[in-house]
Structures are given as structure tokens and as C-alpha cells.
């Protein structure tokens, strides 16, 4: 018997078998997630924000966060420059090029509580997950501190305590402890201009579209977070382009969509790798059996 031909056909069969195992799973593209029915969130409106930072102070108070005196004022003021390990919520300024103030804008930054969060998709331990109210929270008992969430988040939200012996991931959890008491998040509660309001995601979307319809001249005609990156539970209305405010991604596809379709397609239930390993064993044993048969033949 010609071993060479047989090996080829066996290898072909092997490849075909593993492809057949992989393809059906991979072909079922991962289902698009939708916001949970109890999803709550924030609606922030740049045209209403006066940059008073009351929300920043209230957030620190409500979450017991330390002051960040590294920024302005030579150690005198709690004035965070951005989200960091002391700051879960911050007001930043986008300064437009023109002389018209309308080209500048404040922007409130905190976790967007994505409908399909990239951080949760990347977190191999399930420490970051969507939990009650669709809020993305961090479980200290699961986190190993690998910082994959930081690499994954398209909004650069999760922060890490770089100088701690037992570092934590720091991010907005929409004041989960207050939500459980039936209160709203601290930032939306103190906002003197209702620039940021709290509510069910469906209600907030309705309100956002009402404002867009009422003052179409005032806004960029979209609600950021309605569809972007699979949708977020924190929504934004803006009078300057969203790219200027630091929202780098405008596409609808969630970050984990492609990655999880591929990875779960290949590794789901470890079926394909096991089939491949089994194929290798069968291939090896059959060749040995053939070798023996050939030897025994006259």
C-alpha cells in the first residue's frame, strides 16, 4: 500500500472534520445584545452644562474617593484632569478653534455602561459584568488585576491603582449603592442645570429625541449611545461633533462582536480542539496499524 497517498487523504479528512466542527458554530454570528429591561442610565446635554463640577464633588463624596491634588493649583485643589484612580466622574472642556463660544463645550465623562461592554468581554474572570439595572460593576473577589479591561474599553474608563499593594479597578458604577437604596446617582442629583439626568434608558432616549425634535438647530442630530458600539446606557446630546468630545468611535458594531464570534466559534465547549486532538491520535494509530499490516503481509 502506498503510505504517501494514504497520509494525504487522512490529513484531508482531518482538516475537513475539524472545519466541519468549527464552521457551524462560527457561522452563527454572535447575537447582538440589547439593553436589559431594567436598564437605567444618564442623559447628558452639553448645551445645558455650565462646567460647575458639582457632579465631580458629589461623586467623590458619594463614593468615598480621595482628592486628586496632582493637577492644577500646586496641591491646593481637588482638580482632576481626567478620569483616574481617584476620580470616577469628571467634567472636561473641549475648546473650539473659533471665537464663538458655541464651538467650545464641556463634556462629562464616566462609565458609559455599554449594552455590550468591551471590558466585560475582555475580562476573563467575569469580574466586570453587567449586573442589576444593566450597570457594569467590578467584583473585587474575581479580579486578578490583569488590566485587560483597560486595553479593551473604547472610552478609556477603567482605571487602576498603580501605587497600591492591593490595587483595585476604579470606575463609575452608577452609584450602585445609592440605586439599591432607591436613590439616583450623586452626579445627576446635584446637577443644578439638569445637564445630566437619570432615568430608565428607554425614557432617556425618548427625552433625548424630544429635545432633538424641539431644537434641531441646537444639536448634532444624533443621540450618542443610542446605537454606537452596540448602544450605551449613558446617552449624550451635543452641539459640537462627538469626535471633538473624545468619542472616538461612531460605528454601531460592539467591540466584542467580532472577537467573541471568532473565539467562541473556535473554542466553544472545546469541541473543535478536542476533535483536532482526537484526529491526530486516530491518524497516528492508523498509520501504525497499516505499518503492522504491511509487515505481516507476505
Amino acid at each position, binding site marked *: 500500500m502506498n503510505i*504517501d497517498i494514504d497520509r494525504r487523504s487522512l490529513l484531508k479528512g482531518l482538516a475537513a472534520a475539524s472545519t466541519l466542527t468549527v464552521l457551524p458554530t462560527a457561522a452563527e454570528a454572535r447575537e447582538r445584545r440589547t439593553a436589559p429591561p431594567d436598564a437605567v442610565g444618564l442623559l447628558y446635554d452639553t448645551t445645558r452644562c455650565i462646567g460647575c463640577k458639582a457632579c465631580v464633588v458629589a461623586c467623590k463624596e458619594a463614593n468615598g474617593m480621595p482628592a486628586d491634588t496632582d493637577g492644577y493649583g500646586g496641591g491646593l485643589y481637588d482638580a482632576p484632569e481626567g478620569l483616574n484612580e481617584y476620580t470616577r466622574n469628571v467634567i472636561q472642556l473641549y475648546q473650539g478653534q473659533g471665537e464663538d463660544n458655541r464651538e467650545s463645550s464641556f463634556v462629562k465623562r464616566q462609565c458609559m455602561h455599554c449594552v455590550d461592554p468591551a471590558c466585560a468581554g475582555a475580562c*476573563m474572570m467575569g469580574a466586570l459584568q453587567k449586573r442589576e439595572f444593566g450597570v457594569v460593576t467590578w467584583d473585587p473577589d474575581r479580579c486578578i488585576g490583569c488590566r485587560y479591561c483597560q486595553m479593551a474599553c473604547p472610552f478609556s474608563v477603567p482605571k*487602576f491603582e498603580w*501605587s497600591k499593594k492591593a490595587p483595585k479597578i476604579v470606575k463609575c458604577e452608577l452609584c450602585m449603592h445609592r440605586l439599591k437604596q432607591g436613590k439616583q446617582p450623586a452626579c445627576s442629583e446635584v446637577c443644578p442645570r439638569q445637564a445630566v439626568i437619570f432615568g430608565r434608558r428607554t425614557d432617556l432616549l425618548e427625552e433625548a429625541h424630544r429635545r432633538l425634535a424641539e431644537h434641531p438647530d441646537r444639536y448634532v442630530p444624533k443621540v450618542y449611545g443610542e446605537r454606537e458600539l452596540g448602544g450605551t446606557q449613558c446617552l449624550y446630546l451635543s452641539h459640537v461633533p462627538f469626535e471633538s468630545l473624545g468619542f472616538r468611535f461612531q460605528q454601531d458594531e460592539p467591540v466584542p462582536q467580532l472577537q467573541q464570534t471568532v473565539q467562541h466559534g473556535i473554542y466553544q465547549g472545546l469541541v473543535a480542539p478536542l476533535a483536532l486532538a482526537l484526529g491526530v491520535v486516530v491518524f497516528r494509530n492508523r498509520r*501504525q496499524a497499516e*505499518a503492522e499490516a504491511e509487515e505481516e503481509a507476505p
Partner: protein
Amino acid sequence: MTVQPLKAGAPIPGRSHAAPVGGRLLTLPYKILLALAALGTVLIVWRFAAGLGAATAMSDGYPWGLWITFDVVIGTALACGGYAIAILVYVFNRGRYHPLVRPAVLTSALGYTIAGLSVAVDVGRPWHMWKVPLFF
């Protein structure tokens, strides 16, 4: 090309026999590497005492640094040689490469051990690493 088939249980052609290399252990390169390892141990203690930021200059902007390339990327790449040689010799029956098996398996053992241990220095909360098989 035709492959020389093997009989089940028959010795693999060209199978080698391991023997000690002999010679001194504490050579100059060995001592230099020992000194480097001692320095590394001090730095590991410093990292656990002062936090990751102090020892690595990693930050929220660069959450992964040089360490990830050394612990995971190089460690596992070095270690995969054991699999490659094992498949070559035992599955594809290339017996003449059998002398490579022992060093390849040793390298694999060292590679995976180093990768596993050193990534514990790189992650922030290594005391939860035993839970990885539970939640992965």
C-alpha cells in the same frame, strides 16, 4: 517521499539515550546570570512593596508594558517547542529528531513555569489567580 513506517511498540529509529554533559556548573556566564536573577528578586520585592506603578512606570495610558512581553509572550513561545517537537517525533514519526525531545521538553517545562510565575508579578491581584480555572 515515502515514510518508513513504524511497528507499534518498536523502538523509534535513531532514538537517543540521555547522558550527563559533565563539566563545572558555576561558570562565569552562570554567575552573571545568577547576579541578574538576584537583582530581579530585589526588584520583585520592591514591586510588591511599592506597587506596580513604582517598579514599572506603567500607567493607565500604558496598562501593559515590557513585562507582558517577557512573561507571557516570550515564556509561552519558548515553551511551545515541546509541543512542536513532540508532534514531529511522536505523531509524524520523524524518529531522527528524537534527540531534540529531551531538551525541548525541558525548555517547555522551564518556559511555562517562568511564564506562570512571572505573570503573577505582572498582574495586580495575584492572590486571586487560583480562581482562574473556576471563572475562565
